[in-house]
């Protein structure tokens, strides 16, 4: 089955900087979602963007979706140490369950 691919696989930044993560996928989707996972715990839903949407905001999060390129980006502005986590994109594919990408590890240094 299809799997989103996050890029980069790991990112280390300083507190206050912006972090951008990219996700590419292969087939048509209903929507694309981003999740955060802290240190091997459960995943927390961050934001969902539908296939007919191009951009969405939630607090310090900004998600874009380009269905022609089959890619999405997650921007975290003014990062904080508490944003340190692994981030996963998940694609909601017609007729299938959510498919998660491999994840990207973000480290925000104080």
């Amino acid at each position, binding site marked *: 089955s299809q799997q989103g691919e996050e890029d980069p696989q790991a990112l280390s930044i300083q507190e206050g900087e912006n972090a951008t993560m990219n996700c590419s996928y292969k087939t048509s989707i209903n929507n694309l979602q981003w*999740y955060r996972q802290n240190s091997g715990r459960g995943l927390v*839903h961050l934001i969902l963007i539908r296939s007919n949407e191009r951009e969405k905001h939630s607090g310090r999060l900004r998600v874009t979706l380009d269905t022609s390129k089959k890619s999405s980006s997650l921007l975290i502005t003014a990062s904080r140490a508490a944003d340190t986590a692994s981030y*996963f994109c998940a694609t909601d594919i017609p007729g299938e369950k*959510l498919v998660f990408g*491999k*994840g990207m590890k973000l480290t925000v240094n104080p």
Partner: protein
Amino acid sequence: SAVISQKPSRDICQRGTSLTIQCQVDSQVTMMFWYRQQPGQSLTLIATANQGSEATYESGFVIDKFPISRPNLTFSTLTVSNMSPEDSSIYLCSGGMNTEAFFGQGTRLTVV
């Protein structure tokens, strides 16, 4: 939204034994899923837990190894049977409402 309670949070088990993981949701969800996550890896779907009927397993996972129950809309169990060290992993329960998935905190299983 939904809050999912999963227990145990971690366990260390002897090879050849079985462990049952419980998942309780605070509200009715349409779908419940069980995932496995190896350290530093993505989530792999084990199965969809169906209320009152047999779970739907993904390729590579079988009922004899991972029996699943879902007696009602808010509760499910996953058993990891006849464990080996290769079963050491994090097991995650998930409940779906519409298009959003909610996750339990996971069960970190170590088989020795």
